[in-house]
């Protein structure tokens, strides 16, 4: 079973929410809609679900045009950011509700509800009501209810965003297993690149209502087609700096001059934008083969496992990540180096010109 969006656009009151999107989703796949807030992720999900109608374009299920079909006619289930459960029903009843609506036999309901509860570790809580559960458990109930329906298309709209840090982490590691076991088409919307990387599957990178890039998640991560995609798919934010290649040297905006090496060698003379992720910037003294910079520390964010150092340089804000706990003080000067083999180079229009070789 496959779902296709064919040149779909959606405009409301003159504001364009989705522009000319064409996508195909195959059975048993997980697609991650990755993009900042208001990039169109929720709009696309609502179109897939049948809650909204596109202003132009068609939506096809197995090559059948379902554009005009109401959501009740489509085989779809949805999980929201706010844990939405029936407050007066027990967890068991909540999960069973779509099956009761479908008129499924009692014993089958029992089996399917218990299976879903087992998958989502809700067995000890089946008799409780949602308000007696923690946030994480409530969201698991919502996910169980979506899965038990056996819908062909399951949509999850930033389902972990309202959970505590640790709960988010926990649930995130369980989701891939849950998705694999189900076999439906999964579409998962998120603003966090790390979630996309953890879930795997395919990433559909979105920006301002358009699809920027589609591909296997590691692929989109390692080879972003444009600087916009690289920016969307980086957390902490992508570090950028402008360069000019001239007379056999690389001139960084801000003054540093470095020799042409690594990925710079393949470039023709001219101005470019260089992007690099936090782990591609090393906090270390200058060494041969590396391009060195002098930066000032704004703040160090510590997560325990890693430290994110926010740096200022020539009006640019950069972030570097180091393993372990490091306490650099605001105002401190730090040396940072770049490996010319390990960066993304974009031309003036933002298209990718050079990227690190695949490992």
């Amino acid at each position, binding site marked *: 079973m496959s779902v296709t969006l064919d040149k779909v656009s959606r405009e409301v009151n003159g504001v364009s929410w989705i522009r000319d999107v064409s996508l195909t989703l195959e059975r048993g796949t997980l697609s991650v809609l990755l993009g900042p807030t208001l990039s169109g992720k929720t709009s696309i999900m609502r179109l897939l679900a049948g*809650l*909204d*109608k596109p202003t132009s374009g068609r939506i096809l299920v197995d090559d059948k045009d379902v554009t005009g079909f*109401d*959501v009740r006619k489509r085989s779809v289930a949805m999980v929201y950011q706010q844990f939405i459960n029936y407050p007066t029903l027990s967890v068991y009843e909540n999960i069973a509700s779509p099956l009761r609506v479908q008129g499924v036999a009692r014993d089958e309901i029992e089996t399917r509800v218990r299976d879903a509860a087992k998958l989502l570790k809700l067995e000890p809580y089946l008799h409780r009501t949602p308000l007696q559960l923690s946030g994480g458990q409530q969201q698991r109930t919502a996910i169980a209810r979506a899965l038990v329906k056996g819908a062909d298309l399951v949509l999850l709209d930033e389902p972990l965003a309202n959970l505590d840090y640790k709960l988010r982490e926990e649930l995130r590691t369980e989701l891939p297993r849950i998705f694999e076991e189900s076999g439906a088409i999964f579409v998962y919307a998120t603003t966090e690149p790390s979630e996309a990387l953890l879930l795997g599957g395919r990433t559909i990178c979105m920006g301002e209502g358009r699809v920027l890039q589609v591909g296997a998640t590691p692929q989109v991560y390692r080879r972003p087609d444009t600087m916009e995609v690289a920016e969307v798919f980086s957390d902490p934010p992508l570090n950028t700096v402008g360069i000019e290649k001239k007379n056999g040297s690389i001139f960084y905006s801000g003054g540093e001059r470095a020799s042409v090496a690594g990925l710079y060698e393949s470039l023709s003379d001219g101005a470019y934008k260089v992007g690099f992720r936090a782990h591609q910037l090393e906090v270390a003294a200058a060494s041969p083969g590396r391009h060195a910079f002098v930066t000032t520390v704004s703040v160090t964010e510590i997560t325990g496992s890693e430290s994110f150092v926010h740096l200022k340089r020539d009006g640019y804000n950069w972030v570097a990540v180091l393993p372990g706990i490091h306490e650099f003080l605001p105002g401190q000067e730090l040396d940072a180096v770049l490996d010319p083999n390990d960066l993304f180079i974009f031309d003036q229009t933002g298209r990718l010109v050079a990227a690190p070789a695949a490992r």
Partner: protein
Amino acid sequence: MDKTINNKAWFLVLPVFLIVAFSAILPLMTVVNYSVQDTFGNNQFFWNGVGWFKELLDPSTDLGDRFLASLGRNLLFSAIILAIEVPLGILVALSMPREGWRVAACLVILALPLLIPWNVVGTIWQIFGRPDIGLLGYTLNKLGLNYNYVSNSLDAWATIIVMDVWHWTSLVALLCYAGLKSIPDAYYQAAQIDGASRWAVFTAIQLPKMKRVLLIAVLLRFMDSFMIYTEPFVVTGGGPGNSTTFVSIELVKIALGQFDLGKAAALSIVYNLIILIVCWVFYTVMTNADNERAQTTGGA
């Protein structure tokens, strides 16, 4: 958000549509028709065009004089009761307990005046104010004040104003109470931390947060008081003389007293238009205030 389009839904609306057409739209069209004719019923119509409307707005004519005078009385009445009921309602809302069993008791007591049929309210005060058998009238006269709402226009005005305040302040109080309850505790805590005085808490936090609710309360009270008929009519009948004759009472006099249907129809249309315009103004102000609020908080 789109609403799903369901054409079958129109059929469900049809019966309501027919009933409304029958009981409201057709009679309205009749009134419009009458307003451009000169008639006393009896199926005799003489075309008058915009004649009545011109007369209504001309104080030198009898119709115009009566209309404009009663309109003035309505405006004065609405202004006075708003000036009393809004601050009083706010005060009552502020004094009400926020939690516990007392809340329910207060709400019930406040709701009682609102539940009484309006002509009964009028009758209560009519008897209450009588100098011979009314508790209020008797007491006031015994205290030396010469109180008689039948012969003294000032007394008549005072009586219907007090009656309206007694009847409707609860509505303002309940609306304001709802507005107050929606203020998160954090605001009061912050005010405590900032060392704010009781008055500062009122002006800086409570009043601004009640703005929306107050607008609704003012709108409702203005509309109701502007259309008022039953209560003052039962108490004073429009007298003494015509000192408490409001537009609604005037209208009934012309329509049912004099059977001058053309004039009455024209008057009722103009009356209706004034109310619609005022409501529209309020509504626009309210939705603008809402839009402003939505823009600044930005959904956070």
